């Protein structure tokens, strides 16, 4: 453990990769929260495909495979694609998912046409062009980390400055417009921030990790909180945790690729959150259901005893457990219910083993039956 920490600080590669993935996790976690709430979860996937014609055109125009040139091309194409997606969904009845899929495939297809065109050029420096934009998390450089730090800070700062506006825009665009805010401009601003983050992520850590980093931290964070601020914070935290954690795990075993390991880390966090998050989590919900069922079972036994008591005029007469069992067909759990009721002091067991209501239990039973009648 200590060795690991020492590694994390001292080892250049691990430190760079962990810091880079961590920063990326923070930024995409924050922006991803808005993306998920605004139904743009799959934008990462779409932008990474839509970037291809941008890369190809940037290469055709400049003849350079240098990554800043390709990044600009990719960002412009990604942004144009995103803008088209927004305007298609705004001006037609076509839904977001279809617009995403359409733009993604058409842009990528056009990119292929350009690639076959580039292929026929006689010069050799085009080799691997379509892979050149896409990074791998393990190959992060210090300069990448610096870029991400600067861009990430600007993006986060803008999110803080426009917090109130982004929040109300995500919740209720119509109302936002009625207050006089320029909804379209805000929409373009927040989407552009997301596109920038995605393109930076693409060229440093690759497509699939980036797609996952937009969606997964936000989806996990959403389960733990009901406040937007907390969600954005948690999402960034989860993103950073997965980034650093994935980097560390992949540094412990050879041939364990960093990017996919980070994806598995963040996905494990999602699974954990979906199962265990208080209030929303599946296990939590299941436990609540169980508690509810127990309560109903107990109440059923109590009212059965009450009915018996009324039939036999009084609480002195004991009733064997078999009678209760036959009465409660369909809900069961009679033995456990009686035990629970006994500890509460609402029933008691007579010397002959039969059960009766106590005075206190009688009161409770009357209350329950009253409740039942008014609600019916």
């Amino acid at each position, binding site marked *: 453990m200590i060795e690991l920490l020492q590694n994390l600080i001292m080892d250049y590669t691990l430190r760079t990769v962990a810091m880079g993935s961590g920063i990326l996790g923070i930024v995409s976690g924050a922006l991803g929260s808005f993306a998920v709430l605004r139904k743009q979860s799959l934008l990462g996937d779409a932008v990474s495909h839509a970037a291809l014609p941008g890369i190809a055109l940037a290469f055709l125009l400049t003849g350079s495979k240098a990554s800043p040139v390709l990044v600009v091309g990719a960002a412009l194409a990604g942004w144009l694609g995103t803008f088209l997606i927004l305007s298609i969904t705004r001006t037609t009845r076509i839904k977001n998912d279809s617009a995403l899929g359409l733009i993604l495939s058409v842009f990528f297809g056009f990119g292929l046409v350009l690639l076959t065109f580039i292929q026929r050029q006689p010069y050799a420096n085009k080799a*691997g062009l379509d892979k050149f934009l896409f990074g*791998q998390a393990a190959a992060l450089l210090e300069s990448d980390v610096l870029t991400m730090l600067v861009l990430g800070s600007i993006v986060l700062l803008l999110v803080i400055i426009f917090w109130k506006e982004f929040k109300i825009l995500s919740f209720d665009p119509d109302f936002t417009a009625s207050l006089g805010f320029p909804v379209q401009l805000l929409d373009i601003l927040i989407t552009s921030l997301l596109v920038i983050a995605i393109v930076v992520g693409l060229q440093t850590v690759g497509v699939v990790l980036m797609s996952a980093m937009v969606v997964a931290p936000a989806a996990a964070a959403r389960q733990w909180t009901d406040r937007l601020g907390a969600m954005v914070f948690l999402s960034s935290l989860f993103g950073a945790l997965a980034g650093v954690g994935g980097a560390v795990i992949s540094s412990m075993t050879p041939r364990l690729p960093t990017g996919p390991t980070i994806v598995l880390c963040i996905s494990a966090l999602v699974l954990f959150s979906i199962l265990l998050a208080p209030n929303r989590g599946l296990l939590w919900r299941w436990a609540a259901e169980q508690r509810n069922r127990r309560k109903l079972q107990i109440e059923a036994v109590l009212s059965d005893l009450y009915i018996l008591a009324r039939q036999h005029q009084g609480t002195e007469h004991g009733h064997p457990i078999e009678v209760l069992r036959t009465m409660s067909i369909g809900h069961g759990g009679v033995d456990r219910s009686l035990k629970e009721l006994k500890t509460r002091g609402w029933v008691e067991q007579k010397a002959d083993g039969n059960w009766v209501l106590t005075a206190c239990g009688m009161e409770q039973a009357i209350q329950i039956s009253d409740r039942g009648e008014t609600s019916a």
Partner: protein
Amino acid sequence: MRNLIRIILIFALISTGCVLQDQQADSKADFSSRKIWVITTTGMIADAVRNVGGERVEVRALMGPGVDPHLYKASEGDVIRMADADIIFYNGLHLEGKMSEVFEQMQRRVKTAAISSGIARDSLLSPPAFQGNYDPHIWFDVGLWMEGVKNISKNLVALDTASAEIYHRNTAAYLQILSELDAYVHQQAMRVLVEKRVLITAHDAFNYFGRAYGFEVRGLQGISTAAEAGTADIQNLAQYIVERKIPAVFVESSVPPRYIEALQAAVQARGFKVKIGGSLYSDAMGSAGTPEGSYPGMVRYNIDTIVNALIQ
């Protein structure tokens, strides 16, 4: 709905039509009055066919300069070029991916030949866990490649027996060049100290080269383009470079240089300086018209680059 059914029926009719039409595909061609129209996949194969066929062949590579099998996207014209070809040469060993399967299937329409099919299987590299799946980068071992050239010659002779003599003569001349090339590479390699004969690149394309010329080959990630490096891989390789005091690592023309740059930075952080020795041609040759645009030129360029960087 009824319209759709009608459409299917029409298509069914048309497709039976093309079954009948395709029956006359493999009539024997007469080459006495024209050149043989050859299509190859990679530039390396095209270079070999040009040398073997000489004046008798018209060669076109589907993958031009700088186009490696991973980048290659077929264009519409390739269909006609392939359909019109008299013979298609391809590497095989799954270098061309799904295309290899197509070439195997194409036999009825056009004669196809895998260069690698003439090479004895036991001289091929295969990962121990997956026997029978071979490393396809055979052109990096000139000796092995010569077997491939012989295979090209054999196929051309079979196709155009009338000119057999020309092919035999050309082949002998080309093999002579190649064996000199092989000797040159060996000789160059000897100039590097034995403990420094380590070739480090981003992806594992140079295994045949290493085996043939006594280099230890280390790559960051495997052959598969879907594979990715892990943090540990970079750390281990950096550690290895420091321990062995390897002076240089190499980028490849078709792999983003950032992977090797990350490795270089990791080595530097360990207090050792490794330089980037240059860019090697791996899956594709250089621009047409330059020395690296031919197979011998490319091999020469690669070995010179490697040796110059490692020799210090």
